[in-house]
């Protein structure tokens, strides 16, 4: 029996950040999330909020994981959704900036408490709440930076973590070069 060589056999799944610009209308998040679950794709984090009230646009930033052909399929499937105006592959974009914010609660006393504060200083975290036996740190950075501080805090009395998921934007003075501005959308009518 002759077989096709699997062209993806050697490729490891990688995390990819996709920014999805959508019409802000009821059910739009369900359409996007439903596509992922219906087709068995993975969502590692997701953030969503209205970003342009006048144009009724929301930006959904999704971190997913897969081989490149899976990511291409995810992008194509997203673009099929009528409410999706644009899909931006942030990871592929060398000028893409990604940030995440986390709130980290640590409970400890004595030397551990001092060490936690020292670590937070190294990571430029802010203390936003304290008691005699706890801190809440606010930290902003790439997801890997947040992963790192969480791992360091774990032996120092880590209690709870809350993360926003990834946000992204394009560097430089312009809007994302491939993004349709609301004005351009109207003009193409």
């Amino acid at each position, binding site marked *: *029996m002759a*077989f*096709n060589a699997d062209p993806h056999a050697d490729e490891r799944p990688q995390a990819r950040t996709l920014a999805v610009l959508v019409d802000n209308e009821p*059910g739009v998040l369900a359409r996007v999330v439903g596509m992922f679950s219906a087709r068995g794709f993975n969502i590692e984090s997701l953030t969503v909020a209205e970003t342009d009230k*006048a*144009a009724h646009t929301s930006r959904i930033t999704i971190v997913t994981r897969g081989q490149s052909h899976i990511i291409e*399929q995810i992008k194509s499937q997203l673009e099929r959704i009528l*409410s999706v105006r644009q899909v931006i592959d942030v990871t592929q974009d060398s000028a893409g900036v990604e940030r995440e914010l986390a709130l980290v609660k640590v409970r400890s006393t004595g030397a551990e408490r001092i060490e936690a504060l020292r670590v937070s200083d190294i990571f430029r975290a802010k203390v936003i709440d304290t008691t005699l036996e706890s801190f809440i740190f606010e930290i902003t950075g790439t997801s890997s930076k947040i992963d790192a501080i969480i791992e360091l805090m774990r032996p120092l009395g880590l209690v709870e973590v809350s993360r926003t998921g990834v946000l992204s934007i394009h560097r430089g003075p312009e809007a994302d070069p491939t993004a349709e501005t609301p004005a351009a959308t109207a003009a193409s*009518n």
Partner: protein
Amino acid sequence: MSTKPNIRAVTSNEAAPFIAPQMTGAEMVVRALKDQGVDTLFGYPGGAVLPIYDALFQDNELRHILVRHEQGAGHAAEGYARSTGKVGVALVTSGPGATNAVTPLADALLDSIPIVVISGQVPTHLIGTDAFQECDTVGITRSCTKHNWLVKDVGELSAILHEAFEVARSGRPGPVLIDIPKNVQFATGPYYPPEHAPRKSKRTMRRVDASKIIEAIELMASAERPVFYTGGGVINAGPNASQALRALVRETNFPITSTLLGLGAFPASEPQWLGMVGMHGSWESNHAMHDCDVMICVGARFDDRVTGLISAFSPNSKKIHIDIDPSSINKVVQTDVAIVADAGEALEALLEAWRKHRPAARPVTSQDSKNAALAAWWQQIDTWRARKGFAYRPSDDVIKPQYAIERLYQLTKDQDVYITTEVGQHQMWAAQFFHFNEPHRWMTSGGLGTMGYGLPAAMGVQAAHPDALVIDIAGEASVQMTMQEMSAAVQHNLPIKIFILNNEWMGMVRQWQQLLHGERYSHSYSAALPDFVKMAEAFGCTGIRCESPAELDEKIKLMIDTPGPVIFDCRVAKEENCFPMIPSGKPHNEMILLDNFVGDEIDAAGKTLV
């Protein structure tokens, strides 16, 4: 009235702004249907949709066909759409009316059939209160429509109605649903006809990429063992696509096969036609797909029923894939040349390029090695043809189902005939033994495989083609799923012919149990069946029973000549299997045939596949 900020009014003449007439939401529905060219709709009234039915009552242009179950309305709309190339329309009430329409929506989504379903909804102030006959219709139908809308403001209704038709028929066609609360149906607002309706910004259609066409032509010119593999996308692209396909296939002298849904785009009567591809496709088409060196896929999507074992699918070929939906490209099979375009436009571009480049790329001389290779390829195909993969053992005593369809074809082929099917063995035999020379003549549930599709679909076809001969080739199990629609066919003078291949078994289930489950026939035999002749009489139409091959021709002629709907109970061999068959988990060149079938072809891995 309020409109969404991303919707803007378009006026054709800035000097004389259009003044939209005021009317109720229900009146807008009727008006929009007519403005969209609808002449027939299929539906079932209920509390939440009564204002629209009231508006229909006062209209005398639209033809409403009252079904007996909302699933029937959806499938009838599909049959109407598939046989005309137009958008089919169904009208249902809230709650159970909408949930009953889910199966046809899912069916139309998988087969890319343009239908618009309009559902009533409880009044907006009751939404979310678990009101009587309330369900989350847009939530339930989100994943089985191309798009859906809940209209909460009558000011947006006309624009959404027009957009719904546009979405259903544009790009890769598909089903849409508009959910209209009852108070929005009663409310008054401005009606914008299509040319004046506020429109959302439309995505620009991709043009055919000329450089990809050249790449494709170069591959085709270099081919020694080419094959065209075409699908429902060619049918959906309209008559020009079929015409371009025919010209291209004839001029290249390449062999052609198609999916179940693509039958009729290329005439089955022409010598280059190999028959259908796939699990129950022809011996020659499956071998050609496996052994080809260049595959030209047009408007098909490498469905698992076509490819068999993916890792061994056509292992030595370069693949050209033409599809209007970018997500179809590389979804299942990696493509060498991808052309995202309407099948018709791409085929026309290919044809033009072939005519222009062929003399250089492939001179027509007897010494030319490519032509010699193609001739050898045809010789190989002829040896596969000689294997006669569709062969069955004829019988004088009992009607073989294949024989029944062969006779049905012979006795109807010169007429204006449309065929629908249910799902199962009879469907595959119909695809194998009924031959189509024109598109839009063959309506079958391919992707979703919906038993019960054929009878209501036949009603939809007949409503669109009142003088044609419309036959549902059915199985006795499938047809009982929507049999109640015979009552609608009688009421609306739709003279559909239900040709039941009655073997008392869920035949395909029985075949799989025989092949995959150690002949343990778990719940696949109908120990009690209705008397279909009496059933026909009870519905007020004609029943015909045929039990022997000797009387088959005469009874089929009687069916054709009988005015009005007919249920034809064709008693066939009970345990016939459908061959060839690519067993689950096997490649194209390991088909089971009638004469090599032993029963242990499917291994443990294959048994876990569907």
